[in-house]
């Protein structure tokens, strides 16, 4: 029933405008407080209707569960409301600009979701007979071709589950290649600006990580690379470089670096997290890259999903191709064939092993291929160009007020500022980021890369319109000027307007509470008991 406007006031009245009620529920209008399922679900409630099986004699041996399963259930409407309410406490690409540098928060087309859910892709089992999944094998092969053509490489290992898993795969291929050549180098060169996954991956494989220096312009120092290789002659397995690098700059001397690495019988692993800047503009294979993972969830827009699932296929140079892990696809006259075990390999195929059960993130492959097909060669190039254009537009919109650590030079798809513009304001990078939340923006990546003090790494992506960028730039300018006017309240306590204020991470780490436990029963005082 709608409300009749007769007999009720239609003006806004004269209430005090600054008054904010302290509500009984803790809710603030549409901003809802929501308990944990353990606090309102019941052990005997179900949101599914299942028929009890007919009487039968179980064959569980002595393994039947004795203890009850203390998991609360919710009826369907309860579950729907609970998770819808939780969702509303999240920032998302679909609701706003998400300029997280190095994370590539671009639009996630829903066509891709629809395609991944076709029963012919979403409802097939990894181990059903291969004769019944030829379309799936073809799809993987198609995507592999798109990835190889766009990177200028000769092979691709499709199975890694995420970027870091792809790094591990690429480095395992490199280790296997050294072993096959009877070499056992022990060191991997990693610049300080690298993602933390790079040194972690190298260390996981038993390599000693040797840090290499950057030049004052934010790129890797070729002389330092050469000197380090010379110092450890014959003992360098690989260099791990991100290009474009984490400062948002293209490594100008990348070919010379690759040549120096190759001359030392070492391999060039490229962290492909920033490949989205150069798709259709340059091919990593032409830059001397031997192995590079591609974050399908960044460059090719499979949804980040609140932290996964990702997908990290690794393209490989001709030298590394024979070592690609199982499973892989072999081209034959009868079409693509999935090779799953070492017993099925033929001469020239020397897989180093297996990264994961089954065949990789098929659901992500479908989405990425739909994305790439939608763009085509022309659209992929345009997307890279727009990403770089947008980042530079933000750069010139802010560079007079914020501080560029490496001078006013073009950036790639992301622009890096340091915190020197906040000097003497009493506002930190963290405060600044939290104030952005009050303005309705997700903060940029902060305090990364480590080579810059108080780093702020902004990646607008190609998905933003000019109007959206203009408003973002204007907002950032307003915040900078406010900080410089020392309006510290706006920053030091921010965010004020989010579902939560700043959270106490110190206590969370010191006394970890990692699951819900029932509250201890309150002590009953004699007075209360009466």
């Amino acid at each position, binding site marked *: 029933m709608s409300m009749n406007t007769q007999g009720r006031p239609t003006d806004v009245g004269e209430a005090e405008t600054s008054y904010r009620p302290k509500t009984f529920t803790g809710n603030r209008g549409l901003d809802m407080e929501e308990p944990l399922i353990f606090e309102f679900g019941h052990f005997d409630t179900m949101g599914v209707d299942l028929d009890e099986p007919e009487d039968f004699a179980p064959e569980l041996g002595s393994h039947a569960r004795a203890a009850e399963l203390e998991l609360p259930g919710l009826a369907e409407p309860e579950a729907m409301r609970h998770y819808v309410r939780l969702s509303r406490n999240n920032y998302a690409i679909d609701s706003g600009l998400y300029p997280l540098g190095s994370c590539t928060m671009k639009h996630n087309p829903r066509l891709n979701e629809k395609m991944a859910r076709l029963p012919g*892709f979403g409802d097939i089992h990894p181990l059903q007979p291969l004769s019944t999944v030829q379309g799936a094998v073809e799809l993987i092969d198609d995507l592999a071709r798109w990835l190889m053509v766009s990177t200028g490489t000769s092979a691709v290992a499709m199975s890694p589950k995420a970027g870091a898993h792809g790094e591990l795969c690429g480095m395992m291929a490199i280790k296997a290649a050294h072993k096959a050549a009877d070499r056992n180098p022990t060191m991997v060169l990693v610049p300080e600006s690298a993602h933390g996954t790079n040194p972690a991956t190298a260390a996981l494989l038993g390599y000693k990580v040797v840090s290499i220096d950057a030049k004052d312009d934010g790129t890797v120092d070729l002389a330092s690379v050469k000197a380090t290789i010379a110092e450890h002659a014959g003992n360098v397995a690989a260099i791990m470089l991100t290009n474009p690098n984490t400062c948002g700059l293209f490594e100008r001397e990348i070919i010379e670096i690759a040549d120096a690495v190759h001359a030392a019988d070492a391999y060039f692993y490229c962290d492909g997290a920033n490949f989205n800047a150069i798709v259709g503009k340059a091919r990593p294979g032409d830059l001397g890259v031997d192995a590079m993972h591609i974050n399908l969830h960044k460059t090719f827009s499979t949804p980040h999903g609140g*932290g996964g699932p990702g997908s990290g296929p690794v393209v490989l140079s001709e030298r590394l191709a024979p070592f690609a892990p199982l499973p892989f696809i072999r081209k034959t006259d009868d079409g693509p064939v999935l090779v799953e075990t070492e017993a099925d390999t033929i001469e020239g195929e020397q897989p180093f092993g297996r990264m994961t059960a089954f065949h990789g993130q098929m659901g992500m492959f479908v989405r990425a291929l739909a994305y790439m097909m939608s763009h085509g060669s022309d659209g992929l190039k345009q997307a890279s160009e727009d990403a770089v254009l947008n980042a530079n537009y933000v750069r010139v919109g802010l560079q007079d007020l914020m501080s560029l650590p490496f001078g006013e030079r073009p950036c790639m798809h992301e622009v890096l500022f340091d915190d020197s513009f906040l000097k003497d304001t009493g506002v930190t990078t963290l405060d600044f980021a939290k104030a952005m939340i009050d303005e309705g923006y997700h903060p940029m990546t902060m305090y990364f890369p480590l080579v810059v003090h108080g780093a702020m790494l902004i990646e607008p992506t190609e998905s933003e319109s000019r109007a959206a960028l203009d408003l973002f730039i204007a907002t950032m300018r307003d915040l900078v000027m406010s900080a410089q006017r020392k309006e510290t309240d706006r920053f030091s306590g921010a965010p004020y307007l989010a579902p939560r204020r700043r959270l106490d991470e110190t206590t969370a780490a010191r006394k970890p509470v*990692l699951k819900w436990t029932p509250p201890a029963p309150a002590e009953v005082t004699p007075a209360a008991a009466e």
Partner: protein
Amino acid sequence: MRYLPLSDTDRGDMLARIGVDTIDDLFADVPEKARLNELLDLPRRAGELQVERQLSALAAKNVSAGSVPFFVGAGAYKHHVPATVDHLIQRSEFLTSYTPYQPEITQGTLQYLFEFQTQVARLTGMDVANASMYDGSTGTGEAVLMAHRVTRRNKAVLSGGLHPQYRDVVEDISGMADDTVVSLPADPTGTEDILNQIDDDTSCVVVQSPSFYGQLIDLKPIAEKAHAHGALLVAVFTEVVSLGLIEPPGGQGADIVVGEGQSIGNGLNFGGPYVGLFATNQKFIRQMPGRLCGETVDAEGRRGFVLTLSTREQHIRREKATSNICTNSGLCSLAFTIHMSLLGGAGLKKLARINHANAVKLKKDLSAVPGVEVLNTAYFNEFTVRLPEPAHGVVEALAEKGVLGGVPVSRLEPGKPELENLLVVASTEVNTDEDRAAFAGALKEVLA
């Protein structure tokens, strides 16, 4: 291009504002000899309709599980997922959000991760669980590495009942890291003597129950022997629904429990993305891999959640991290949490009973086929049968008759004559009596 908001006018104006003439001026750092002057040798852009047409044609070449009598398991299982689950995980706020590094505006993700961790801890009977791994196989690899850190030893003993591809993942990462792995021969019936393999150099024993072959394994004696030698028991499962009916590994002395969570909330997807479950005891939390969500309060004292103990992780610790892992399996863990909330303990138990009842019926039906021998005595929703001829050909012949009838062990363990005739079959709640009759009938014809 429909995904790109900039118009050519915008582009021209923006280049002028930046102060360059052409877009290529912004790519000036790319070495000239590596610049692409032509488009990539790939098709041009395509509209939704064209993409949908092409991909649908590929999808149509595959036989989907829901379209036939379907008995394939061996690490991934066909279950019914309520419609609510897929709707909720496609909400923009979940689907298009990043890792919750800004907790003030990602409490939605953080709270469900906390619920997920609590559900997994309770299911497995362990103190704590992490916010998920890529899948069960990579989680098993991480569990072994963690056991090495905890015990400061580097020899893992793997049961012959472990999923062969999980074993391969563990062996291959261990080989690269120069650790030792002792893998026992295939053990379809759960009769291997694993206790004899445990010694003072052993860091962990890895045992799967229900095993790859479907056999339920008593973990208690293995835990006792492992602990007596200062080693850990890593308990693995690939079918999480089994925990609705069987004794959880935590109650049997497991130190690390790792498994595949796909069955709850997640489709088959030809093998991924899935969701790895990982749980352990309180004393080991600082050696755990992967993300952890913890409870805390905000500046106004209200309860909230954050990612915590990140000093274990690569972005802080770099080469000293407990793992190189950067992501979890966020959206798949959400699907798990929602489905598990709809089931609750009572629903999971009922679902597990239906699965077990269907497997018991299937065993009866297949046992009646001449020449078929069921190898397992205690099992949940999956078991192994010995056929009178190589299983590989039988499965292909069954597929031609429109029945997807299990996984030949030889597909994962080729070149082992003693395994060539073995077939692993699973039956879940999706199977009807008609499905089972079709399977048994077709098998009879194929073997005749």
